[in-house]
């Protein structure tokens, strides 16, 4: 009987929480500034502070050309908001971009590294602009406030009903059972509230995906980029060294803030089929913009120590047949650092492949020499190390390489 009552009370609670979900509002006008005494102004203050802190962060990438490129793309997909958005490129090796209600936006290097072309970047930036244009942060804040109020009212109601029922029970054991059940029910209400918050977030993400895709297609970019980007990310996830990461796209939890990636790819593909063909040629501009940072960003990516994902990212970047000296060097670095059976021999092959390219860093010869030394190829090691010294005679580790060469010459 109590279970039946609990279910009824739970249904009331769920209804109250759903009622706290607001309808979506109209897009914001460009240049809009919130009234000083508004809730939005409070959020802007917080975000202004976060933006000031972002300007001091060590990860801030201040390269003028790179920032100009990313800003150019965002202004192409959001011409009307170009004057509202302040964009910061952050050297962080994760796939992420954000947009705050005051126009402060971050694009992370892990995202730039994983976009294959300008269209894919345009898709992500369109998604973020949609959060801005549709006032998602404000809606989420207001919905959360309403939800918390509703949750408190429902929880208090349950507490009162439970207390009255316990007071009227026949014996202390029954009273204790009712109070335990009441406590559990209040937990359920709070869980439902938290779950509702994340469901609301997923709805915003879905809206930003679709509206963002329409926005970038309207700017002339290929709408097929949406599905392509997400399938690439899904494929990368499956190559992770970690089981939990590999499985993250296989089930949706009630506390997940974003929809599952496969569902996002499907929805984007379906929407892309309805949109016009692209009028912009996006090839190569993206790679040209990120080329100066490939080495540094791949080094950062290696520090995540998910070598499967880094190797997959390098494979994706290699498809364009550009930058193969740098890419093969970092493939070798990933294999060397992972150190599984067979990795050292494959690292040597990767370093060798790097040294055959004009853009190979001198360190490729040093690492090739070291890999050959470890696999018993003393003559090959000496040749590679000697080439390293000839290419980088002033390297501050030259003495270490000479020591290795001496040891190899002595047959150590």
């Amino acid at each position: 009987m109590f279970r039946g009552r609990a279910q009824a009370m739970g249904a009331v609670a769920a209804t109250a929480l759903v009622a706290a979900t607001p309808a979506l509002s109209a897009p914001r006008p460009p240049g809009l500034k919130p009234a000083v005494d508004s809730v939005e102004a409070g959020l802007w203050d917080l975000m202004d502070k976060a933006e000031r802190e972002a300007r001091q962060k060590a990860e801030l990438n201040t390269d003028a050309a790179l920032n100009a490129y990313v800003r150019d793309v965002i202004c192409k997909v959001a011409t009307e908001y170009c004057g509202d958005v302040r964009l910061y490129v952050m050297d962080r090796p994760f796939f992420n971009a954000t947009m705050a209600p005051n126009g402060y936006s971050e694009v992370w290097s892990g995202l730039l590294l994983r976009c294959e072309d300008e269209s894919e970047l345009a898709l992500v930036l369109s998604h973020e602009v949609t959060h801005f244009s549709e006032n998602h942060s404000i809606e989420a804040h207001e919905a959360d406030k309403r939800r918390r109020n509703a949750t408190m009212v429902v929880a208090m109601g349950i507490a009162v009903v439970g207390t009255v029922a316990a007071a009227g029970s026949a014996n202390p054991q029954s009273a204790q059972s009712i109070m335990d059940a009441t406590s559990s029910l209040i937990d359920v209400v709070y869980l439902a509230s938290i779950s509702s918050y994340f469901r609301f977030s997923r709805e915003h993400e879905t809206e930003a995906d679709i509206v963002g895709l329409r926005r970038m297609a309207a700017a002339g970019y290929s709408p097929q980029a949406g599905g392509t980007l997400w399938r690439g990310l899904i494929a990368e996830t499956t190559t992770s060294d970690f089981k939990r990461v590999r499985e993250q796209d296989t089930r949706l939890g009630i506390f997940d803030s974003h929809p599952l990636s496969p569902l996002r790819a499907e929805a984007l593909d379906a929407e892309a089929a309805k949109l016009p063909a692209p009028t912009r040629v996006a090839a190569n501009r993206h790679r040209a913009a990120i080329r100066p940072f490939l080495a540094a960003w791949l080094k950062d990516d290696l520090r995540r120590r998910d070598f499967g994902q880094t190797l997959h990212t390098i494979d994706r970047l290699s498809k364009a047949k550009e930058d193969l000296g740098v890419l093969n060097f970092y493939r070798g670095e990933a294999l060397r650092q992972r150190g599984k059976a067979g990795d050292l021999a494959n690292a040597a092959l990767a370093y060798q492949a790097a040294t055959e390219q004009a853009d190979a860093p001198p360190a490729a010869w040093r690492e090739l020499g070291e890999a050959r030394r470890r696999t018993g190829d003393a003559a090959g090691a000496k040749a590679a190390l000697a080439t390293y010294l000839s290419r980088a005679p002033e390297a501050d580790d030259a003495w270490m390489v000479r020591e290795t060469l001496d040891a190899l010459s002595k047959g150590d």
Partner: protein
Amino acid sequence: MRILRPLLAAAAVLALAACETIPKAPAGPYKAGASQVTLGRDWSDVSVLLAGGLKKVKVLSIDGPILNRLYITDGLAVGESLVKSPSKERPTPKLRAGMNSSERMEFVADSIAAMGYQRVETMKPRPAKFGEQQAVRFDITARTEDGLDVQGTALASEAAGKTAFVLFLAPAEHYFQASLPEVEKVMASARPAG
């Protein structure tokens, strides 16, 4: 509420940790397992705050961990770390078998990055001694997440499959240079496990 109980318990643990005693590391011999250095002045042993429970890693400070920190390790074996991993999905660097001096520098740099420092670079490797053992000494630059420039210097040596480190990090402005003479003496006094 039951769902809040674990959070309250965690908060209580944190509160208790905040009350943890920071022992003094007085001037004189100081041991990290079998490794030993001689301190020229009193330091504070902040291992309880920074070593993450790694028994072979000791961390000392003069003015607080943000302003100067000196890592001294016992000989670390293959598979052991300088920094504790926060989760399985966020592993920290582990020593691999057969690492050369260049890789030991990379291990230190990646470990510093795992501590949360940004833009970590190593430079100026030079031959050195760790007791009687051959070692490599090198310098480090990095930045804190909030953009403060940091300098460092490190000593690394491997013997019989165990690698010992002495690593000093401090803000480039004032603190690094202020403590460097003391750190040089500490590094010169280092005796590895053995």
